[in-house]
């Protein structure tokens, strides 16, 4: 457990020291969302109809951008070798890094989302489910993304390749994330999509750290 807390504390401290990195991700989230009214037109009812989906898609892309650097820096400066040799189970190390990633990018995205939802005229009853869905969905995004980020370590075209590997795997989260917002707006009050998102999170939490650990181990071989 000491490895988990030590690594989590270090990553959070680093993120705080280089807070511009997290800010950039949130700024990307904002600018990408704001592009939509320009592309689609400012009619309130059209925007309200697509608000949930737009926020989810841009949040996924923003998270993806930050995932590129999840292991790369540690890989390039030799820290990853040392972390593999930390004496603790590697999935635990992965979990610490993913938790830090979620706290420094997932949480800011959740906090930012209602502000952006305002600009898209999201109906009032949509805010709570949207934030709840992001809260349940972004951990899966970080966990699944970590597998991809570990797999592309040392490749010639890391970032683009990462999107190709990970985005198809994000589709289930996107479907149920958007559906939880839409279910409330269309009046079909249901927790089904949210429960499924929670199920995905549990599944990702049990499987992804091991897959990521396997990928990291072969990256440092």
């Amino acid at each position: 457990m000491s490895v988990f807390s030590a690594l989590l504390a270090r990553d959070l401290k680093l993120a705080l020291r280089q807070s511009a990195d997290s800010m950039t991700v949130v700024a990307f989230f904002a600018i990408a969302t704001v592009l939509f009214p320009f592309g689609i037109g400012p009619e309130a009812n059209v925007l309200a109809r697509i608000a949930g989906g737009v926020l989810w898609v841009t949040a996924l892309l923003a998270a993806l951008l930050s995932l590129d650097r999840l292991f790369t820096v540690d890989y390039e400066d030799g820290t990853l070798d040392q972390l593999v040799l930390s004496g603790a189970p590697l999935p635990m190390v992965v979990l610490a890094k993913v938790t830090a990633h979620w706290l420094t990018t997932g949480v800011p995205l959740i906090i930012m989302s209602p502000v952006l939802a305002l600009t898209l005229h999201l109906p009032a009853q949509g805010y709570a489910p949207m934030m709840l869905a992001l809260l349940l969905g972004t951990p899966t995004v970080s966990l699944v993304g970590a597998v991809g980020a570990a797999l592309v370590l040392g490749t010639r075209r890391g970032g683009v390749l990462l999107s190709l590997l990970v985005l198809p795997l994000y589709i289930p989260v996107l479907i149920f994330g958007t559906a939880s917002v839409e279910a409330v707006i269309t009046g079909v009050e249901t927790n089904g999509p949210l429960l499924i998102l929670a199920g995905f999170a549990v599944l990702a939490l049990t499987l992804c750290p091991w897959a990521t650990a396997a990928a990291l181990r072969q990256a440092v071989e």
Partner: protein
Amino acid sequence: MVRRMDGDFTPRSFSGSGLACRRGGRLVFTGLAFGVAPGGALVLRGPNGSGKTTLLRLMAGLTPSTAGALAWDNVPIDDPEAHAAHLRFITHLDAIKPAFTVTENLGFWMSLWRGRVDDANLARAVAAFDLTRLAAFPARLLSAGQRHRLALARLLVAPAPLWLLDEPGNALDAPSRESLARAIAAHRAQGGMVIVASHEATFVDGGETLDLGVFTPKTAVHWSEESEEAQI
């Protein structure tokens, strides 16, 4: 003289036998054996490409061996995580975060390996490599030699019986080599072991030498048609 720290290790011997390793389709070495007793030192020598770094990474458990086994006290290793906890590995890369100060960098490794930061021992590790003056500076301001000393100071923040050092003398000036020699001597005096890959290991006193050139497979140098079949 570096004083003993709490949570010390029990001296044990470290050995390997029948080791072979294939990298990128090439058999780097084969039939390699070595042994280090508590307090012992082993210097790895050999021409470029003879696998010094590969052997160190194999000893650390990062690279799997194609054949053979490593052992503590002649008991083969079965748990890579427990094995990793018994060693410190200094690679070509310094694993330093430029945004952190010298103390913070070392403090992280200390908390990772020992669960908490012990200021007295941390200060001692910083002093051992003559970094006290720089302790509060962010690592991004350090020169290459200073960064290397900071990486070496990691050896002292948490005790472990086996030190694996890959070319630790590079980028060090004479006084720093002295510091490294002192640290190694103190480590060995406690029953620790050192395995160094180096061209001129002036900082290791009376260690044994392992020439890796001996274990370079001859068949790989002279590609024969019989060996085609077996290789993939």
